[in-house]
Protein backbone atom coordinates (compact mmCIF):
# COMPACT_ATOMS: atom_id res chain seq x y z
CA UNK A 1 0.00 0.00 0.00
CA UNK A 2 1.27 3.45 -0.93
CA UNK A 3 1.55 6.20 1.66
CA UNK A 4 0.29 8.74 -0.88
CA UNK A 5 -1.18 7.98 -4.28
CA UNK A 6 -2.06 10.95 -6.47
CA UNK A 7 -3.54 10.27 -9.85
CA UNK A 8 -4.35 12.62 -12.77
CA UNK A 9 -4.91 15.59 -10.49
CA UNK A 10 -6.09 18.76 -12.19
CA UNK A 11 -6.86 22.13 -10.67
CA UNK A 12 -7.59 25.42 -12.41
CA UNK A 13 -8.17 28.76 -10.67
CA UNK A 14 -10.21 31.65 -12.14
CA UNK A 15 -11.89 29.37 -14.64
CA UNK A 16 -14.32 32.04 -15.81
CA UNK A 17 -11.66 34.67 -16.46
CA UNK A 18 -9.90 35.17 -19.78
CA UNK A 19 -6.64 33.99 -18.25
CA UNK A 20 -7.41 30.93 -16.08
CA UNK A 21 -4.54 29.64 -13.97
CA UNK A 22 -3.83 25.95 -14.31
CA UNK A 23 -2.31 25.14 -10.93
CA UNK A 24 -2.05 21.38 -11.42
CA UNK A 25 -2.07 19.49 -14.70
CA UNK A 26 -2.54 15.70 -14.79
CA UNK A 27 -0.37 15.43 -11.71
CA UNK A 28 0.63 11.86 -10.85
CA UNK A 29 2.85 10.77 -7.98
CA UNK A 30 3.25 7.88 -5.56
CA UNK A 31 5.08 7.95 -2.24
CA UNK A 32 5.94 4.75 -0.43
CA UNK A 33 5.70 4.37 3.37
CA UNK A 34 8.81 5.47 5.27
CA UNK A 35 10.03 7.83 2.54
CA UNK A 36 11.05 11.41 3.19
CA UNK A 37 10.11 13.37 0.09
CA UNK A 38 11.06 16.97 -0.63
CA UNK A 39 8.80 19.05 -2.86
CA UNK A 40 10.59 21.90 -4.59
CA UNK A 41 9.82 24.37 -7.36
CA UNK A 42 9.66 28.08 -8.11
CA UNK A 43 7.06 30.40 -6.60
CA UNK A 44 3.60 29.71 -7.99
CA UNK A 45 4.62 26.23 -9.13
CA UNK A 46 1.65 24.55 -7.44
CA UNK A 47 3.31 23.13 -4.30
CA UNK A 48 0.90 24.61 -1.78
CA UNK A 49 -2.09 23.90 -4.04
CA UNK A 50 -0.99 20.26 -4.16
CA UNK A 51 -0.68 20.15 -0.37
CA UNK A 52 -4.04 21.90 0.15
CA UNK A 53 -5.77 19.39 -2.11
CA UNK A 54 -3.94 16.49 -0.46
CA UNK A 55 -5.17 17.70 2.95
CA UNK A 56 -8.72 18.16 1.67
CA UNK A 57 -8.72 21.95 2.15
CA UNK A 58 -9.55 22.43 -1.50
CA UNK A 59 -11.15 20.22 -4.13
CA UNK A 60 -9.46 19.16 -7.33
CA UNK A 61 -11.31 19.57 -10.63
CA UNK A 62 -10.48 15.96 -11.47
CA UNK A 63 -8.24 13.15 -10.34
CA UNK A 64 -7.89 11.29 -7.08
CA UNK A 65 -5.80 11.35 -3.93
CA UNK A 66 -5.50 8.56 -1.39
CA UNK A 67 -3.49 8.29 1.79
CA UNK A 68 -2.65 4.77 2.96
CA UNK A 69 -5.49 3.54 0.78
CA UNK A 70 -8.09 5.97 2.17
CA UNK A 71 -9.59 8.47 -0.25
CA UNK A 72 -8.87 12.00 0.90
CA UNK A 73 -12.57 12.91 0.60
CA UNK A 74 -13.04 10.69 3.67
CA UNK A 75 -12.10 12.84 6.68
CA UNK A 76 -10.86 9.76 8.57
CA UNK A 77 -7.62 9.69 6.57
CA UNK A 78 -6.54 12.60 8.80
CA UNK A 79 -6.26 10.18 11.72
CA UNK A 80 -3.04 9.07 10.03
CA UNK A 81 -1.73 12.51 9.11
CA UNK A 82 0.00 15.41 10.83
CA UNK A 83 0.09 18.75 9.05
CA UNK A 84 2.14 21.90 9.47
CA UNK A 85 0.75 24.96 7.76
CA UNK A 86 2.76 27.81 6.24
CA UNK A 87 0.13 30.23 7.60
CA UNK A 88 -0.44 30.11 11.31
CA UNK A 89 -3.46 30.77 13.45
CA UNK A 90 -2.79 33.48 16.02
CA UNK A 91 -4.82 34.27 19.10
CA UNK A 92 -4.48 36.72 21.97
CA UNK A 93 -6.33 34.47 24.35
CA UNK A 94 -5.14 30.99 23.47
CA UNK A 95 -1.92 29.77 25.06
CA UNK A 96 0.66 27.62 23.29
CA UNK A 97 0.13 24.65 25.58
CA UNK A 98 -3.66 24.81 25.27
CA UNK A 99 -3.33 24.99 21.50
CA UNK A 100 -1.21 21.82 21.49
CA UNK A 101 -3.58 20.03 23.87
CA UNK A 102 -6.49 20.95 21.59
CA UNK A 103 -4.59 19.56 18.59
CA UNK A 104 -3.85 16.39 20.50
CA UNK A 105 -7.50 15.89 21.47
CA UNK A 106 -8.66 16.52 17.90
CA UNK A 107 -6.06 14.02 16.67
CA UNK A 108 -7.57 11.42 19.00
CA UNK A 109 -5.03 11.62 21.86
CA UNK A 110 -6.78 13.32 24.78
CA UNK A 111 -4.23 12.41 27.45
CA UNK A 112 -0.97 13.25 25.76
CA UNK A 113 0.78 15.65 28.13
CA UNK A 114 4.01 13.68 28.16
CA UNK A 115 4.51 13.83 24.40
CA UNK A 116 3.60 17.53 24.30
CA UNK A 117 6.15 18.33 27.01
CA UNK A 118 8.81 16.22 25.30
CA UNK A 119 8.27 17.98 21.98
CA UNK A 120 8.22 21.42 23.62
CA UNK A 121 11.51 20.60 25.26
CA UNK A 122 13.04 19.22 22.07
CA UNK A 123 12.20 22.38 20.12
CA UNK A 124 13.25 24.57 23.09
CA UNK A 125 9.78 26.02 23.56
CA UNK A 126 9.06 24.97 27.14
CA UNK A 127 9.20 28.57 28.32
CA UNK A 128 6.65 29.61 25.70
CA UNK A 129 4.09 27.04 26.85
CA UNK A 130 2.16 29.59 28.93
CA UNK A 131 2.43 32.42 26.42
CA UNK A 132 -0.39 33.40 24.10
CA UNK A 133 0.04 32.42 20.46
CA UNK A 134 0.04 36.02 19.30
CA UNK A 135 2.95 36.93 21.58
CA UNK A 136 5.28 34.38 19.94
CA UNK A 137 7.75 35.33 17.24
CA UNK A 138 7.16 34.00 13.72
CA UNK A 139 9.85 31.37 14.16
CA UNK A 140 8.47 30.23 17.51
CA UNK A 141 4.99 30.08 16.06
CA UNK A 142 6.30 27.93 13.23
CA UNK A 143 7.85 25.58 15.78
CA UNK A 144 4.47 25.30 17.52
CA UNK A 145 2.93 24.27 14.18
CA UNK A 146 5.74 21.75 13.70
CA UNK A 147 5.15 20.28 17.15
CA UNK A 148 1.43 20.04 16.50
CA UNK A 149 2.08 18.16 13.24
CA UNK A 150 4.04 15.46 15.09
CA UNK A 151 1.53 15.10 17.93
CA UNK A 152 -0.09 11.69 18.31
CA UNK A 153 1.16 8.90 16.14
CA UNK A 154 0.91 10.15 12.56
CA UNK A 155 2.05 7.73 9.86
CA UNK A 156 2.41 10.62 7.44
CA UNK A 157 3.50 14.17 8.19
CA UNK A 158 3.00 16.93 5.63
CA UNK A 159 5.09 20.04 6.17
CA UNK A 160 4.52 23.19 4.14
CA UNK A 161 7.76 25.19 4.10
CA UNK A 162 8.79 24.09 7.60
CA UNK A 163 12.08 26.01 7.63
CA UNK A 164 10.76 29.31 6.20
CA UNK A 165 10.91 31.28 9.47
CA UNK A 166 13.42 29.20 11.42
CA UNK A 167 16.89 30.34 12.47
CA UNK A 168 19.86 28.08 11.53
CA UNK A 169 20.06 26.20 14.89
CA UNK A 170 16.33 25.44 14.69
CA UNK A 171 16.77 24.21 11.12
CA UNK A 172 19.47 21.80 12.34
CA UNK A 173 17.17 20.64 15.15
CA UNK A 174 14.39 20.00 12.69
CA UNK A 175 16.73 18.13 10.34
CA UNK A 176 17.85 15.86 13.18
CA UNK A 177 14.28 15.40 14.32
CA UNK A 178 13.11 14.38 10.84
CA UNK A 179 16.01 11.89 10.62
CA UNK A 180 14.89 10.36 13.94
CA UNK A 181 11.29 10.11 12.82
CA UNK A 182 12.39 8.52 9.58
CA UNK A 183 14.02 5.72 11.54
CA UNK A 184 10.68 4.95 13.14
CA UNK A 185 9.13 4.49 9.68
CA UNK A 186 7.26 7.77 9.43
CA UNK A 187 6.54 9.10 5.94
CA UNK A 188 7.27 12.79 5.49
CA UNK A 189 6.36 15.06 2.61
CA UNK A 190 7.64 18.60 2.81
CA UNK A 191 7.86 21.59 0.53
CA UNK A 192 10.76 23.98 0.78
CA UNK A 193 12.88 26.57 -1.00
CA UNK A 194 15.97 25.63 1.01
CA UNK A 195 17.65 23.29 -1.45
CA UNK A 196 20.54 22.28 0.83
CA UNK A 197 18.15 21.15 3.54
CA UNK A 198 15.95 19.32 1.06
CA UNK A 199 18.97 17.49 -0.30
CA UNK A 200 20.25 16.55 3.16
CA UNK A 201 16.98 15.25 4.53
CA UNK A 202 15.09 13.75 1.59
CA UNK A 203 15.16 10.28 0.10
CA UNK A 204 13.49 11.61 -2.99
CA UNK A 205 12.92 15.02 -4.50
CA UNK A 206 9.95 16.08 -6.58
CA UNK A 207 10.44 19.14 -8.76
CA UNK A 208 7.23 20.84 -9.76
CA UNK A 209 6.64 23.80 -12.06
CA UNK A 210 3.51 25.22 -13.71
CA UNK A 211 1.48 22.49 -12.08
CA UNK A 212 3.44 19.66 -13.67
CA UNK A 213 5.91 17.20 -12.23
CA UNK A 214 9.16 18.05 -14.01
CA UNK A 215 11.57 15.95 -11.97
CA UNK A 216 11.45 12.92 -9.68
CA UNK A 217 14.94 12.20 -8.36
CA UNK A 218 16.31 9.77 -5.77
CA UNK A 219 18.89 11.67 -3.73
CA UNK A 220 20.98 8.50 -3.36
CA UNK A 221 21.48 8.52 -7.13
CA UNK A 222 22.32 12.21 -7.34
CA UNK A 223 25.60 13.70 -6.18
CA UNK A 224 25.98 16.52 -3.66
CA UNK A 225 24.86 19.86 -5.04
CA UNK A 226 22.83 18.15 -7.76
CA UNK A 227 19.59 19.91 -6.85
CA UNK A 228 21.05 23.38 -7.08
CA UNK A 229 22.70 22.58 -10.41
CA UNK A 230 19.50 21.04 -11.75
CA UNK A 231 17.48 24.05 -10.59
CA UNK A 232 19.88 26.45 -12.32
CA UNK A 233 19.79 24.36 -15.48
CA UNK A 234 16.01 24.39 -15.39
CA UNK A 235 16.00 28.18 -15.25
CA UNK A 236 17.92 28.38 -18.52
CA UNK A 237 16.94 25.21 -20.38
CA UNK A 238 13.49 24.44 -18.85
CA UNK A 239 14.65 20.88 -18.30
CA UNK A 240 15.26 19.58 -14.78
CA UNK A 241 17.30 16.49 -15.62
Amino acid sequence: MKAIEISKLNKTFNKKSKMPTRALIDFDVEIIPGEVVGLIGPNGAGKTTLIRILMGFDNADSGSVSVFGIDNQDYRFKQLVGFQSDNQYRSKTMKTYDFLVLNSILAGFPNNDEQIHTLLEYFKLSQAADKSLVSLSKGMRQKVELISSFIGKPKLVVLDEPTAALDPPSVFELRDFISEQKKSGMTILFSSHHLTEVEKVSDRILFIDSGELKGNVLTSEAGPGFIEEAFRRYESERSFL
Partner: protein
Amino acid sequence: MKTQLQAILKAEFTRYFTLSKIIILSLVTILGVVIAMLPSWLGFFDSEAAGFFAIKDIFTYALKIIIPFSIFFITPGIIANDVNNFWFRTVFSRPVQRQTVLASKYIYASLLLLLFTIAFCLIPLIVFSFTAPGIEFNVFSVLSIWFFAYMEGLLFISIAIWFSCFLSKFFNVLLLAIWMFADNIVINGVLANFFWDSPIMGVFTEFFFPNGFANAASFYSLKDSFPVEHFFWGMAALTFFGALSYLHFSLINIDRPGND
Protein backbone atom coordinates in the same frame (compact mmCIF):
# COMPACT_ATOMS: atom_id res chain seq x y z
CA MET B 1 -16.77 13.09 18.62
CA LYS B 2 -18.08 14.18 22.02
CA THR B 3 -14.55 14.88 23.24
CA GLN B 4 -13.77 16.78 20.04
CA LEU B 5 -16.95 18.85 20.42
CA GLN B 6 -16.10 19.68 24.03
CA ALA B 7 -12.55 20.66 23.08
CA ILE B 8 -13.66 22.86 20.17
CA LEU B 9 -16.39 24.46 22.29
CA LYS B 10 -13.88 25.25 25.02
CA ALA B 11 -11.64 26.77 22.36
CA GLU B 12 -14.57 28.86 21.04
CA PHE B 13 -15.03 30.43 24.49
CA THR B 14 -11.27 30.90 24.93
CA ARG B 15 -11.01 32.64 21.58
CA TYR B 16 -14.23 34.67 21.50
CA PHE B 17 -15.46 35.18 25.05
CA THR B 18 -12.90 37.90 25.56
CA LEU B 19 -12.63 40.72 28.10
CA SER B 20 -14.67 43.07 25.88
CA LYS B 21 -17.60 40.63 25.91
CA ILE B 22 -17.38 40.19 29.68
CA ILE B 23 -17.39 43.99 30.14
CA ILE B 24 -20.37 44.43 27.80
CA LEU B 25 -22.22 41.62 29.58
CA SER B 26 -21.56 43.26 32.96
CA LEU B 27 -22.70 46.67 31.67
CA VAL B 28 -25.85 45.12 30.23
CA THR B 29 -26.60 43.52 33.60
CA ILE B 30 -26.10 46.80 35.46
CA LEU B 31 -28.25 48.64 32.91
CA GLY B 32 -31.00 46.03 33.24
CA VAL B 33 -30.96 46.24 37.04
CA VAL B 34 -31.04 50.05 36.97
CA ILE B 35 -34.03 50.01 34.59
CA ALA B 36 -35.75 47.44 36.83
CA MET B 37 -35.32 49.67 39.88
CA LEU B 38 -36.41 52.91 38.19
CA PRO B 39 -40.17 52.51 38.85
CA SER B 40 -39.49 52.01 42.55
CA TRP B 41 -37.10 54.99 42.71
CA LEU B 42 -39.58 57.20 40.87
CA GLY B 43 -42.41 56.23 43.21
CA PHE B 44 -44.43 54.59 40.43
CA PHE B 45 -45.94 51.97 42.72
CA ASP B 46 -47.57 54.65 44.82
CA SER B 47 -49.47 55.98 41.81
CA GLU B 48 -52.84 54.82 40.41
CA ALA B 49 -51.19 53.68 37.17
CA ALA B 50 -49.51 50.86 39.11
CA GLY B 51 -52.80 49.00 39.01
CA PHE B 52 -52.56 48.66 35.20
CA PHE B 53 -48.96 47.55 35.20
CA ALA B 54 -48.36 44.40 33.11
CA ILE B 55 -45.00 42.85 33.84
CA LYS B 56 -45.25 40.54 30.83
CA ASP B 57 -45.33 43.50 28.43
CA ILE B 58 -42.21 45.06 29.92
CA PHE B 59 -40.46 41.71 29.80
CA THR B 60 -41.45 41.16 26.15
CA TYR B 61 -40.12 44.61 25.18
CA ALA B 62 -36.87 43.99 27.05
CA LEU B 63 -36.37 40.74 25.12
CA LYS B 64 -37.15 42.50 21.85
CA ILE B 65 -34.25 44.86 22.57
CA ILE B 66 -31.66 42.46 23.96
CA ILE B 67 -32.00 39.61 21.48
CA PRO B 68 -31.15 41.53 18.26
CA PHE B 69 -28.41 43.40 20.18
CA SER B 70 -26.91 40.08 21.34
CA ILE B 71 -27.08 38.58 17.86
CA PHE B 72 -25.20 41.58 16.41
CA PHE B 73 -22.64 41.22 19.13
CA ILE B 74 -22.17 37.45 19.05
CA THR B 75 -22.54 36.16 15.52
CA PRO B 76 -21.01 38.41 12.83
CA GLY B 77 -18.01 36.75 11.19
CA ILE B 78 -18.57 33.61 13.22
CA ILE B 79 -17.66 31.48 10.18
CA ALA B 80 -15.91 33.94 7.83
CA ASN B 81 -13.38 35.07 10.46
CA ASP B 82 -12.28 31.52 11.09
CA VAL B 83 -11.61 30.97 7.40
CA ASN B 84 -9.53 34.15 7.21
CA ASN B 85 -7.50 33.66 10.39
CA PHE B 86 -6.65 30.02 9.51
CA TRP B 87 -8.49 28.59 12.51
CA PHE B 88 -10.40 26.20 10.27
CA ARG B 89 -7.14 25.09 8.68
CA THR B 90 -5.94 24.13 12.16
CA VAL B 91 -9.14 22.29 13.08
CA PHE B 92 -9.77 20.60 9.76
CA SER B 93 -6.22 19.32 9.43
CA ARG B 94 -7.46 16.87 12.09
CA PRO B 95 -10.08 14.13 11.69
CA VAL B 96 -12.93 16.48 12.56
CA GLN B 97 -16.28 16.48 10.78
CA ARG B 98 -17.81 19.75 9.68
CA GLN B 99 -21.00 19.14 11.63
CA THR B 100 -18.94 18.97 14.85
CA VAL B 101 -17.55 22.44 14.20
CA LEU B 102 -20.96 23.79 13.16
CA ALA B 103 -22.49 22.33 16.32
CA SER B 104 -19.83 24.08 18.41
CA LYS B 105 -20.71 27.39 16.73
CA TYR B 106 -24.42 26.92 17.46
CA ILE B 107 -23.81 25.90 21.08
CA TYR B 108 -21.40 28.78 21.68
CA ALA B 109 -23.78 31.39 20.21
CA SER B 110 -26.80 29.90 22.02
CA LEU B 111 -25.05 29.88 25.40
CA LEU B 112 -23.89 33.46 24.96
CA LEU B 113 -27.41 34.51 23.97
CA LEU B 114 -28.67 32.76 27.08
CA LEU B 115 -26.19 34.74 29.20
CA PHE B 116 -27.30 38.01 27.60
CA THR B 117 -31.00 37.32 28.19
CA ILE B 118 -30.29 36.33 31.80
CA ALA B 119 -28.20 39.46 32.28
CA PHE B 120 -30.65 41.93 30.75
CA CYS B 121 -34.00 40.28 31.48
CA LEU B 122 -34.05 37.57 34.13
CA ILE B 123 -31.72 39.14 36.72
CA PRO B 124 -33.41 42.57 36.48
CA LEU B 125 -36.78 40.83 36.68
CA ILE B 126 -35.82 39.13 39.94
CA VAL B 127 -34.58 42.48 41.27
CA PHE B 128 -37.82 44.08 40.11
CA SER B 129 -39.95 41.46 41.86
CA PHE B 130 -38.33 42.46 45.17
CA THR B 131 -38.80 46.20 44.64
CA ALA B 132 -42.38 46.05 43.35
CA PRO B 133 -44.74 45.15 46.16
CA GLY B 134 -48.23 44.17 45.11
CA ILE B 135 -47.38 43.58 41.43
CA GLU B 136 -48.54 40.20 40.18
CA PHE B 137 -45.60 38.07 39.18
CA ASN B 138 -46.32 34.80 37.34
CA VAL B 139 -43.04 32.90 36.97
CA PHE B 140 -44.39 30.35 34.47
CA SER B 141 -45.85 33.06 32.27
CA VAL B 142 -42.61 35.04 32.24
CA LEU B 143 -40.52 31.95 31.52
CA SER B 144 -42.82 30.99 28.65
CA ILE B 145 -42.40 34.39 27.02
CA TRP B 146 -38.67 34.14 27.56
CA PHE B 147 -38.66 30.68 25.92
CA PHE B 148 -40.41 31.92 22.75
CA ALA B 149 -38.15 34.96 22.53
CA TYR B 150 -35.09 32.79 23.04
CA MET B 151 -36.23 30.50 20.22
CA GLU B 152 -36.54 33.62 18.04
CA GLY B 153 -32.93 34.34 19.02
CA LEU B 154 -31.92 30.84 17.90
CA LEU B 155 -33.59 31.53 14.57
CA PHE B 156 -31.55 34.74 14.22
CA ILE B 157 -28.40 32.76 15.09
CA SER B 158 -29.07 30.21 12.35
CA ILE B 159 -29.68 33.03 9.84
CA ALA B 160 -26.51 34.84 10.95
CA ILE B 161 -24.43 31.65 10.69
CA TRP B 162 -25.83 31.06 7.21
CA PHE B 163 -24.95 34.63 6.17
CA SER B 164 -21.48 34.21 7.64
CA CYS B 165 -20.77 31.24 5.38
CA PHE B 166 -20.50 33.55 2.38
CA LEU B 167 -20.11 37.07 3.79
CA SER B 168 -17.31 38.84 5.61
CA LYS B 169 -17.95 40.26 9.10
CA PHE B 170 -18.85 43.75 7.81
CA PHE B 171 -21.32 42.57 5.16
CA ASN B 172 -22.65 40.00 7.59
CA VAL B 173 -23.62 42.79 10.01
CA LEU B 174 -24.96 44.93 7.16
CA LEU B 175 -27.14 42.19 5.69
CA LEU B 176 -28.38 41.15 9.11
CA ALA B 177 -29.32 44.78 9.85
CA ILE B 178 -31.09 45.13 6.47
CA TRP B 179 -32.90 41.84 7.04
CA MET B 180 -34.07 42.85 10.51
CA PHE B 181 -35.10 46.31 9.27
CA ALA B 182 -37.02 44.78 6.35
CA ASP B 183 -38.57 42.24 8.67
CA ASN B 184 -39.80 44.68 11.31
CA ILE B 185 -40.48 47.88 9.40
CA VAL B 186 -41.00 47.14 5.71
CA ILE B 187 -42.55 43.67 5.59
CA ASN B 188 -44.43 43.36 8.83
CA GLY B 189 -45.04 47.08 9.13
CA VAL B 190 -45.80 48.89 5.87
CA LEU B 191 -46.34 46.11 3.30
CA ALA B 192 -48.39 43.93 5.62
CA ASN B 193 -50.91 46.77 5.94
CA PHE B 194 -51.32 47.12 2.18
CA PHE B 195 -51.23 43.44 1.23
CA TRP B 196 -52.66 41.85 4.35
CA ASP B 197 -54.98 39.55 2.33
CA SER B 198 -52.47 38.60 -0.41
CA PRO B 199 -51.51 34.89 -0.33
CA ILE B 200 -48.27 35.64 -2.21
CA MET B 201 -47.32 38.19 0.40
CA GLY B 202 -48.12 35.64 3.10
CA VAL B 203 -45.87 33.01 1.59
CA PHE B 204 -43.11 35.56 0.93
CA THR B 205 -43.21 36.81 4.50
CA GLU B 206 -43.37 33.41 6.16
CA PHE B 207 -40.53 31.97 4.11
CA PHE B 208 -38.06 34.84 4.07
CA PHE B 209 -39.00 36.88 7.12
CA PRO B 210 -40.34 34.29 9.54
CA ASN B 211 -41.87 35.62 12.74
CA GLY B 212 -43.35 32.48 14.23
CA PHE B 213 -41.58 32.69 17.57
CA ALA B 214 -41.96 36.48 17.89
CA ASN B 215 -45.68 36.13 17.18
CA ALA B 216 -45.83 33.23 19.63
CA ALA B 217 -44.31 35.42 22.36
CA SER B 218 -46.77 38.28 21.63
CA PHE B 219 -49.70 35.86 21.43
CA TYR B 220 -48.80 34.24 24.74
CA SER B 221 -48.27 37.63 26.35
CA LEU B 222 -51.80 38.66 25.33
CA LYS B 223 -53.81 35.44 25.74
CA ASP B 224 -51.88 33.20 28.13
CA SER B 225 -52.48 30.07 26.04
CA PHE B 226 -49.94 28.05 24.08
CA PRO B 227 -49.62 29.49 20.54
CA VAL B 228 -49.45 26.17 18.66
CA GLU B 229 -49.65 27.56 15.13
CA HIS B 230 -47.11 30.33 15.65
CA PHE B 231 -44.76 28.00 17.47
CA PHE B 232 -44.71 25.46 14.64
CA TRP B 233 -44.22 28.20 12.05
CA GLY B 234 -41.22 29.24 14.11
CA MET B 235 -39.93 25.67 14.28
CA ALA B 236 -40.34 25.32 10.50
CA ALA B 237 -38.33 28.51 9.94
CA LEU B 238 -35.64 27.41 12.40
CA THR B 239 -35.34 24.05 10.65
CA PHE B 240 -35.23 25.75 7.24
CA PHE B 241 -32.47 28.22 8.12
CA GLY B 242 -30.63 25.61 10.21
CA ALA B 243 -30.61 23.32 7.17
CA LEU B 244 -29.42 26.18 4.93
CA SER B 245 -26.53 26.96 7.28
CA TYR B 246 -25.62 23.25 7.43
CA LEU B 247 -25.74 22.95 3.65
CA HIS B 248 -23.59 26.02 3.05
CA PHE B 249 -21.12 25.13 5.77
CA SER B 250 -20.74 21.70 4.16
CA LEU B 251 -19.93 23.29 0.81
CA ILE B 252 -17.76 26.33 1.53
CA ASN B 253 -13.98 26.37 1.28
CA ILE B 254 -12.83 26.13 4.87
CA ASP B 255 -9.45 27.50 3.94
CA ARG B 256 -8.14 30.41 1.93
CA PRO B 257 -5.12 29.98 -0.34
CA GLY B 258 -1.77 30.86 1.19
CA ASN B 259 1.56 31.26 -0.57
CA ASP B 260 2.52 28.82 -3.27
